[in-house]
Each structure stands twice: as structure tokens, then as C-alpha cells.
């Protein structure tokens, strides 16, 4: 049972990383980015592409991050900013269009077969905790990165001037503009930051297992479930949501490999019925 819980928490770490970028964009702009999962896959393929260009693999994995920041800033500034507003339709259609474009662009350049990022044995390295229990080093690393990312985001939002601007623009964009903030730039910064998190998640997913152009939507659903179950508006909530999803899926997989993901979805829907505001809703 302990082994199962541990695997669940480790998987939860990965799902948290998937979810943090989405949670950030939800929180600041109330934007639903249906291409979120595809951008994660795009980042993984980005690292593969850079490595293929001859860049040192570890450098390639890191080089993806600044590229993701630039891409995020531009996507928000020049594409998504026009779709913001009360009507959810434009942002849904645009991000859905992006999802189709990314999936097919990757299909065209990398073909459909799954690939993984060269990890020089890191993904097979394991660490014996007790004689009967050993755990992979990479999953531990992912969990640590997830905790650091959650801590970092929470710190940025609570303690820094940029975080204050994020919260102000999220509360009342019109009055934030009155204070001298340029909402359009703040949104672009938020998306840029979210894309760095997306890139980290993409690279780690590529290291951990295989990635294929059509994997995006499934990752979006996991990220979405973690954010909603955790309660919108708090990154610790997203972490809790990710853990819950990871453990639920592990239980499902243990019961029958076919029902793992199914179990995660059902718990999400069940929780939605009981506590729509999520486990840790920010009282606002």
C-alpha cells in the first residue's frame, strides 16, 4: 500500500507541473487554454529538435526555457489578448485552432511515432529506500521540481511587485490600468511565465516516457482536473489536486490497467458534484 501511495504522489508531482501553468493563466486572466497540453508536447519536441541540431542534450533541455518564455509572451500579446473578455467563445476557438495547428505541424515534421528525450540512463536510475521498496530518481527529481515551482509561484504572487500586479489585474483590469499598469503586458508576462512551467513539464515528460504529437489533449485534461479539484486561485490547491489525481490513477491502474485514467476522471466528476469550489478555494 505504501508503495502505491508513493507512486501516486510521484505521479502527482508530474501532474502538478502540468497544472501550474494552466492555474497561473486561469488565475490571472480567466483564460481557458485548450492548447495547453499541446504546448507541453511542443516543448518536449523543441528539446528534441535542438538536440538534433547538435546542441549538447542537457543544454538543449535548458535552452527550451527562454524560447518558451518568448513564445508565451508573443502568443498572449499578439493572439490571445484579442480574445479576452466576457464571451468565452473566441478564446476557446482560437486555442482549439492552435491545438490543431500544433498537433499537425508536429505530425508533419516528426511523424506520429512516439519519441523520448535522451536521459543517459537517468530515467532508469533507482534508489533503494528499504530492501523491498525502491523508487526512481527521475520521479523524485520531478516531485522536487514541482514543489519548488509551487513554492516559487506562491512566493512571486505574494511577495513581489509583479505578483501584486498579477493579482490586481486579475481582480479589476480597468482599475489596474488606472493605477498605471498596462494590462496587456501583464497578461503577456503571466503567459510567458506559464510557458516556462509548460516547457519544464514537457522536457521532464519527454525524459520520463515517450511523447507523440497527439498526446496533448490528455495532458490538458489531467492539468485541468488538478486545477479544478485543488480549487482555483491557489497554487497549493493545484499541488493538492495533482497529488489527488496521481494517487487516484495509481489506484485505478493497480485495479486494472484499463481503468487508471478512467478512475481519475470519475473522482474529478464526483468531487465536482460534491465540492464545486474545490479543496482549497481562495476565499474571494
Amino acid at each position: 500500500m505504501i508503495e502505491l501511495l508513493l507512486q501516486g504522489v510521484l505521479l502527482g508531482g508530474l501532474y502538478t507541473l502540468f497544472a501550474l501553468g494552466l492555474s497561473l493563466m486561469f488565475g490571472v486572466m480567466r483564460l481557458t487554454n485548450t492548447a495547453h497540453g499541446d504546448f507541453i508536447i511542443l516543448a518536449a519536441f523543441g528539446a528534441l529538435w535542438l538536440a538534433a541540431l547538435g546542441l549538447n542534450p542537457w543544454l538543449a533541455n535548458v535552452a527550451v526555457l527562454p524560447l518558451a518564455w518568448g513564445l508565451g509572451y508573443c502568443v498572449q500579446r499578439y493572439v490571445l489578448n484579442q480574445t479576452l473578455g466576457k464571451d468565452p467563445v473566441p478564446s476557446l476557438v482560437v486555442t482549439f485552432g492552435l491545438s490543431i495547428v500544433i498537433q499537425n505541424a508536429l505530425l508533419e515534421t516528426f511523424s506520429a511515432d512516439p519519441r523520448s528525450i535522451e536521459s543517459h540512463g537517468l530515467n532508469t536510475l533507482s534508489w533503494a529506500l528499504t530492501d523491498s521498496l525502491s523508487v526512481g530518481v527521475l520521479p523524485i527529481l520531478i516531485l522536487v521540481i514541482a514543489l519548488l515551482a509551487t513554492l516559487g509561484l506562491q512566493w512571486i504572487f505574494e511577495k513581489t511587485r509583479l505578483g501584486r500586479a498579477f493579482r490586481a489585474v486579475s481582480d479589476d483590469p480597468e482599475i489596474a490600468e488606472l493605477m498605471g499598469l498596462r494590462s496587456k503586458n501583464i497578461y503577456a508576462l503571466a503567459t510567458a511565465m506559464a510557458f516556462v512551467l509548460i516547457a519544464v513539464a514537457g522536457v521532464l515528460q519527454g525524459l520520463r516516457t515517450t511523447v507523440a504529437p497527439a498526446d496533448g489533449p490528455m495532458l490538458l485534461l489531467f492539468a485541468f482536473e488538478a486545477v479544478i479539484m485543488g480549487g482555483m486561485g491557489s497554487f497549493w490547491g493545484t499541488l493538492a489536486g495533482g497529488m489527488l489525481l496521481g494517487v487516484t490513477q495509481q489506484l485505478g491502474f493497480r485495479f486494472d490497467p484499463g481503468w487508471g485514467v478512467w478512475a481519475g476522471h470519475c473522482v474529478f466528476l464526483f468531487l465536482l458534484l460534491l465540492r464545486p469550489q474545490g479543496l482549497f478555494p481562495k476565499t474571494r
Partner: protein
Amino acid sequence: MFPGDSNIVLHTRDLKAFYGDAQALFGIDFEIGKGQAIAIIGANGAGKSTFLKALAGLVKVQATAVNWKGQDIGGRLPSEIVRLGLALVPEGRRLFPSLSVQENLMMGSESQRKGPWSLERLFNLFPILQEKRHQPSTSLSGGQQQMVAIGRALMSNPELLLCDELSLGLAPLVIREIYNALPEITAEGMSVVLVEQDVSLAQQMTQRLYCLQEGRVSLQGISSLLSREQISQAYFGQ
């Protein structure tokens, strides 16, 4: 307008404004000198708030309609206008709920305008705010929230402060407490425009007064010289 007022800081010429497709202002001519306090009164829906929003850039107007110290600023972004020294205390206060009192005040300094105003000076102007500075702004009473809204605007070191119904929903003695702080605020020559529903308060606190009715100026003059009949005539249009 008034001969000899050479130091006019802001004037509007035939200012028109629209809310969606309904017209709210039908050509307003207004001006205010340095260090002056002017009141704007009028019934609900007369266009008082729309006028302030037009000055602050929250409502788009023609470029030549608003002139600030010789420069046409009509239709500019609010974030640009606040950097020029116009600050608005919005109707209904509209503090940032997820920010603490102090964080709300700090938001006012985002425009990075240099000047006399700082947290310390605000805390001795409104002592209660120092005590509650780390509390969420939603946990304050109406009057205290109004003080935060004023403080937030002052933190941008404006040369012209636009106040939209400071007395909204406040008890009389709280209104008195807030308006007592006005002289200290305008001490260094800051001009103030007060949109105010309480007519007698508006007359007491300002030198000149405009009355709006249905988006037009129905009366203007020296606050102390205007009689109650004139005002109720302009107020209700009969």
C-alpha cells in the same frame, strides 16, 4: 470663463462621451486652475461619473476634447494619463479584493511619479490605515475603504485629484472625517474635482461649482454665491 485665471491646468472643449451606443455627455466645457477645488453636482444619471471617467481615460473621447497643461490628452490610455498627474478615486471605491490595505496603497505608486506622498504621510493622514495595513481590504468598513481609495490615488502624486462621490453610503460623521483631510491633501497646490451628491457639502468644500443635468452643464458659478433656488432649478431642471 473667469478672467485673470491664467494658470488653468485642465480644460475641456465640447466634450462628448458615449456608454455603448447611448450618449451620456453632450458637449461639456469645463476648466480648473492650479490649487483650485471645483464641485460637480447633479441628479443620478446626469453624467457626473462619466465626465470623471472621460478625464481619466476610462471612457474614450475625442483627442481635442480634453487639454491638460497645454497638451491634448483625450482618448489616451488610463495608464498614460495617470503618469501625466491625473488620479481618479473611482465611484464605489473599487479596491483590489485580493490585496491587503498596504498593497492597495502601493498599487497607486505603479506610475512611478515622484512627489511628496508616501506610505508614512498617508498613515498620519489616516492613522487607522497603519493599524490595519496588513489586513485584506475587504475587511474594512465603508469609510476606511474610502480612505484607502483616496490614499491609493494620492500615492501617484497627482497634480489633479478627481474624486467620485466620496460620501457614497457613509455615515455623516465619517464623511466629515474624510473631508477634514482635504485641506492637508491640497496643501501643496493640488487641484481637486469633487463629484458630490450632498449639495451643501459640495458648496462648503469648493470655490466653484458646475451642475450637470442630462449630460449638459445646466449651471456654473462661485460655490458660495449660488442660491438654493438656482441649484434646485439646475438640479431638477424646473
